[in-house]
């Protein structure tokens, strides 16, 4: 080591303290006896000291927080509105459809059978009204159930307002596409019509802080 000058990469490694212990000691001994290498090491140190000084400058970033948060809020509002449009359209269509069905405007071959398995018009309206009052969006309405999504914080109140209905639900991610929602084992069904008010609501299943919404189906 003492015969040859130290390569710059070794000096750089020494500066970052990433040399193996034995090599580190050998390089340090060399620096004590070789003026040229010691000078090179000092220059490296001076260079990096200037870099740190430059990095420590606090440049004026006036309004960066406000402008960024304002854009984030706008984008979020826009996304929420866009997300609710199909649900609102579906609600209107279903209300009209159920209305036509209940007034007999739509011909159904086996009306008694079909009607027996469906939510009645007035019942559908009631369910939809309750859902809307709880900050929920409706994504699907069929003869058997009304499906929607609601923030976790509003779900317990929504369930209590549902009264004697069967409600299946699961926790979902806001951005989870419908095809990824599986109504399998994750479903708990609560609120069977036993003739008694439902008192013990089952705890929500699903884990992860990102699951902040509840997808639910209110059955007949």
């Amino acid at each position: 080591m003492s015969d040859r000058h130290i390569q710059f990469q070794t000096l750089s490694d020494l500066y970052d303290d990433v040399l193996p212990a034995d090599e580190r000691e050998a390089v340090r001994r060399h620096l004590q006896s070789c003026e040229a290498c010691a000078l090179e090491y000092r220059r490296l140190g001076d260079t990096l000291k200037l870099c740190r000084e430059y990095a420590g400058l606090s440049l004026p970033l006036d309004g960066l927080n406000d402008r960024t948060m304002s854009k984030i809020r706008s984008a979020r509002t826009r996304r929420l509105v866009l997300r609710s449009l199909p649900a609102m359209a579906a609600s209107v269509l279903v209300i009209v459809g159920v209305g036509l069905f209940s007034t007999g405007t739509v011909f159904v071959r086996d009306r008694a059978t079909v009607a027996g398995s469906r939510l009645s018009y007035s019942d559908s309206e009631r369910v939809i009204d309750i859902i809307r009052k709880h900050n929920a969006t409706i994504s699907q309405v069929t003869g058997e159930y009304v499906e929607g999504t609601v923030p976790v914080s509003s779900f317990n109140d929504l369930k209590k307002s549902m009264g004697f209905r069967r409600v299946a639900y699961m926790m979902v991610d806001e951005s989870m596409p419908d095809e990824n929602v599986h109504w399998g084992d994750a479903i708990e069904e609560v609120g069977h019509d036993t003739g008694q008010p439902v008192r013990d609501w089952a705890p929500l299943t699903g884990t992860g802080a990102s699951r902040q919404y509840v997808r639910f189906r209110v059955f007949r």
Partner: protein
Amino acid sequence: MSNSDSEDIQVIDRVLGGDVEAFTQIIDKYKDKAFNYIYGQIKDYDEAMDITQEVFIMTMEALRSFRRESKFSTWFYSIMVNYCKNYRKKNSRYNLVSMNSSRGDEEYDLQLPDERENPEEEVIMKESLRIVRDEISKLPDDYREILLLRDIQGLSYNEIAGILGISLSNVKVRIHRGREFLKNRLLARGLI
């Protein structure tokens, strides 16, 4: 996990839980470092401000995809570094300003380098730091990128390898060469 990392995770959980305003804490914590890096790469104050803003918005929108397999800061820097790379690819090296001019009946546009004063000039009081800034900006792309991450941002070799998607030995080589390059330039300018 360090205190800083667990603080980040707590804030992220709050944001994902619906408290969007908590994201201001992330902006506050990382804005200076992010801007320093972006400005070092873009060299235009106003554009660097816009890009810094875009990087934070992109981070917020992608927050659900953060798998927590790495530190949040590493993930954030990856977004920032890639954004800058793409931006630099799409844009020319120098910022140009348009100037209409005319000669006789003929009108034509002149494209000139933008040399307007920027707010940084008022902050950098020491000539030595202006030289450092200029010489960093003149480094070859690969060396400037790694020097900004290592010696300006203070990231570890491992973090840099993760952010840039290169091997640890490659990180070391680039750091050595970048430092040597800068040291020689500062020596030539009489600064060291």
